[in-house]
């Protein structure tokens, strides 16, 4: 049994280090789709998080709770919703995005947006109000003051980005339903792992799993270093 595991791991490493085109195509699809979804969602989500933290409007409580709830919606449910939107009979059917990377990006945007909004709102809520006041009273225009506040919150905001990225990079349900797991087009790491495992081809599944594991380690170590550098404030 142990020898079997060892052989599988060796095969997995060989697939990665020999730059196997199929494995690296899957990795490339995964990263390009998730980066695109994150890049499109990042700024609007942060702005919404900022507004929810600092403005007081009717229905703010409702919006906040709705976003908190959306964080825990299973990705297959979001996949189903996006599928219904993009299917030929759906309201966005004319876009012909079903089973394309664009469709996957749309789905992943809907998954990562609530995480980004909720976590950035929590970060902005925790900020020391004096940061904003000091910046403004020293003559900074509002946009510079926002930047100053974001700079003070770089650790929790980066944490939000990493959490959102991890969630979309590892989700299976939505990618499977909206992307269709088409080889070389919409097959990404989680859908490929699910497929290869069901076929009994564990070497490729382990290779792709290792990529996710290394990525998780790198992100968490980077964040840990950043947290370590951030010193607590006495006032």
């Amino acid at each position, binding site marked *: 049994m142990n020898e079997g595991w060892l052989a599988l791991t060796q095969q997995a490493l060989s697939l990665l280090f020999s730059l196997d085109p199929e494995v690296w195509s899957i990795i490339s699809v995964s990263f390009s789709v998730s980066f695109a979804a994150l890049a499109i969602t990042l700024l609007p989500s942060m702005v919404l998080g900022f507004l929810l933290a600092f403005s007081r409007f009717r229905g703010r409580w409702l919006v906040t709770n709705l976003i908190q709830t959306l964080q825990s919606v299973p990705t297959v449910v979001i996949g189903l919703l996006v599928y219904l939107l993009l299917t030929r009979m759906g309201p966005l059917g004319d876009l012909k995005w079903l089973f394309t990377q664009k469709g996957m990006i749309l789905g992943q945007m809907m998954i990562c947006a609530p995480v980004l909004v909720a976590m950035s709102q929590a970060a902005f809520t925790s900020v020391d109000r004096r940061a904003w*006041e000091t910046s*403004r*009273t*020293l003559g*900074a225009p509002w946009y510079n003051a926002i930047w100053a506040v974001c700079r*003070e919150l770089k650790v929790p905001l980066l944490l939000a980005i990493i959490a959102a990225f991890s969630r979309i990079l590892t989700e299976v349900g939505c990618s499977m339903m909206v992307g269709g797991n088409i080889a070389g087009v919409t097959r990404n790491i989680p859908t490929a792992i699910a497929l290869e495992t069901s076929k009994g081809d564990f070497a490729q599944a382990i290779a792709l799993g290792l990529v996710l594991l290394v990525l998780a380690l790198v992100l968490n170590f980077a964040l840990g270093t950043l947290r370590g550098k951030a*010193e*607590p404030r006495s*006032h």
Partner: protein
Amino acid sequence: MAKIIAQDLEMRFGDKHLFSAAELIFSQNQVIHLQGDNGCGKTTLMKLLAGLIKPTQGQVQAIGYSLAPWWRSNSIVGKALYLHQHPYLFDGTVLYNLTYPLSFSDNDKVRLNTRTEQAIEMAQLGHLLSQSASSLSGGERQRLAIARAWIVEPKLMMLDEPTSNMDKHSQHLVLQMVADLKKQGTGMIISSHQSCMLTQICDHVWLIDNNKISSNDKVPEAPPTLAVHINPNMLNNMA
């Protein structure tokens, strides 16, 4: 001359009436000692005049400032500099904090650089420049905050209980910078519920009492020992 004028001012928090005033004028060349018991609204009044909060009633306007470009709002925020009782220092080094406002100042860059060097000397921060601002003591933080303000030569400035957490040495250094700003014509409000070294240089008094703000010329106190505290050589060098 730069002024901030508040008219028909009233401030309430829910049902609680904090204070009201028919008219308050805070202008350059005026150093005001803002007096009042704890919780009477000194900080709130200064934040109102700095544009950081809005009054329940009345209006606050700034006069004598150039119009901001079209893409920036012309609100009164940023017209009068407000220093918190516990100053906020940004995450970064002491030098980063000192130079933070330089890019927003309209003053000549060469002059700002010269003033930065002078401020470092006056506040005795030279040996701390590369240190993280979060590692400073209470007095050093206050000195840094006032030095940062001194560099940009504000027309109007408000100091909220500036000496509340400072030792004598830091108080002397802060007094030098504040006295120098007075000499340059900066209008100042210094809040303190009791007299201290800094309040001795004030020439007006605003008193918050019984929810009303009254304004008076200062009754002369026993001659302050200001000349002893200020290093005349340093002031001459700066001039």
